[in-house]
């Protein structure tokens, strides 16, 4: 944390809104993008980001300085998103819970894994087209880790700080989340292919 940030935090504690705005300026856009990818629409993302920033403003005195300010900010943003999702969860949302832990860090798909069929299914152009949809279908634990790692490009260590878990957990969660996402995309493409070409592919 730089000297400037420390003095801004101090001023914010005394209730200076200008200092607070200067303090969070560098993080706003990324926070907003995290919220957008987590929630999937612009309005909610804007509301939730602001809610999170206000939470940060209110609880700035509880910031100890033993973690990086950025990870502290992003962890609050992430938690606010999850709260929002829980609050607004509709009855008809069903998340895919298809893998189970073997207990030794590896995992198995409960449904037969079609990825090992020797054909290259994923086409880059099509994937790009469907990816946000697929992300929205992941459960929130997997969604947050995909957003943090692959879209926002945080390192494993930073993610561990944001989610307050160990790096080992981050590793296995990323693997699982990606596996799930791959599965989802493959199913989507099969489905669309079927829609276009009748039942040719089967």
């Amino acid at each position, binding site marked *: 944390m730089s000297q400037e940030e420390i003095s801004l935090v101090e001023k*914010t*504690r*005394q*209730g200076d*809104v200008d200092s*607070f*705005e200067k303090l969070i300026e560098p993080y*706003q*856009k*990324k926070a*907003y*993008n995290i919220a*957008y*990818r987590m929630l999937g629409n*612009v309005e909610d993302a*804007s509301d939730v*980001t*602001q809610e999170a*920033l*206000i939470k940060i*403003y*209110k*609880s*700035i*005195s509880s910031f100890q300085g033993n973690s990086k300010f950025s990870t502290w900010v992003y962890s609050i943003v992430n938690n606010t998103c999850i709260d929002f999702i829980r609050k607004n969860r509709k009855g008809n949302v069903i998340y895919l819970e298809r893998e189970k832990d073997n207990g030794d*860090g*590896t*995992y*198995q798909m409960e449904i037969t894994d079609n*990825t*090992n*069929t*020797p*054909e*290259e*299914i*994923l*086409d*880059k152009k099509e*994937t*790009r087209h469907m*990816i*946000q949809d697929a992300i929205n279908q992941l459960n929130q634990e997997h969604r947050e880790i*995909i957003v943090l*790692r*692959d*879209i926002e*490009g945080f390192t*494993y260590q930073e993610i561990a700080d944001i989610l307050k878990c160990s790096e080992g957990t981050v*590793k*296995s969660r*990323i*693997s699982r989340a*990606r*596996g799930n*996402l*791959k599965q989802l*995309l*493959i199913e989507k493409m099969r489905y669309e292919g079927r829609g276009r070409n009748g039942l040719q592919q089967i």
Partner: protein
Amino acid sequence: MDCNKFDYNSSLYIDGMLSDNERKEFEKHIEECSDCAMALKNLQTIVGCLNDIDEIELPSDFNTTLRQKLTSIEVPKEAPIKKTFSRATRHWKGLAAGLVILVLSVAAYNGMNFPEQTKTAQEDLAYESAPASPQESFDFNTASKDNVRTLEPTVTGLDLKNAPSYTIGIANEETVEEARLFGEADAVDSSMKLIHQGRLRIETSDFDDVYGEVIRTVDQYGGYLQHSEIYYRKIFRDKPEDSIRVASLSIRIPGNDFMEVFENLRGLGVVLNHNITTTNITDQYRDIENEALNLEIQEERLRDILEKADKVEDLLRIENELSRVRYQINNLRGTLNQYDKLVTMATIDLELEEVKDSTVRLQPVQDGIWGKAKANFVNSVNTIIVIAEKGFIKTFALLPILILMAVIATSAIAIYRLIKKGR
């Protein structure tokens, strides 16, 4: 390496998180196993796509709305004060709970005349908590006068504060008397802002009369009922006149008459619980008022600058600042109004309980542990008998249904057999 572990490692491989040994092993496996190579390629495609996703821009009004929200919340430094306060109340809660337990256990130990005991105990507590009530009622009279004064839109409040107290008191002779009695020392206190709240629980045998009396008192003092609810605590359908009612009222009365009304209400029945809370908000009130005044001065100055400014850019900036200041002023004034309302009208929560003369609690003879044990024993035996009786009755109640079902079942079986034979 087997293909199961491959899934887990391929993700780490893409991110370069494998150790040298693991990586070599992994790369070797890819060369041998074409399925895994394909799976890795798929995964790489996905991660590549995810990395390609561009960041979106913040909405254009993001910063302005955030600013509004930020300025409308309290200063964060107040948080620690609140914390110590809640800790203090926690202590009080603990103390209160301890007292209640003590009182209850003493009462229980002394036998069955327990309602009587708690009643007096609660009253004692209530009196202890309100020793300064006459003093408070006086402060209040003068405080509300001050309130009238502050409502006048003057900046000369300081002069008024130093003015001799009798010039203010003309409107009300009684308060002049009191002001003289208490002398100079109260000239300082006269600007106190106090919020009064009272809670009262009364027991009475003529519920309707007392309820009417309460309403009359409220009317007489120019107050109003904020909330009123009457319900039955016990209903005897065969003997409606024995039913017991409870009224729960929330009364607002002018602050000056608070003590008087409270005393009147106390006289209406047997007091079960009595509680007065007075909050002194003078300091907060003055702080907020000063802040508002400062902002108003600032607003004036901004307007002056606005007149002189000629560049569009400056104009916009000043207007922005002006609207921010105005917003804050409105906020503060709103809080002050809210406080004024609470000060001018005090709140009394009144609970009125009906008791029947015939059901006035009998005082059983002190019969000690044996007696209670015996009573409990008899109770348990009675319960067992009742349960047995009910069970017996229920079986009889079910009997017709059972018979009916048996008839249907036998006939169904008979028909089934007939059909089977027929085939």
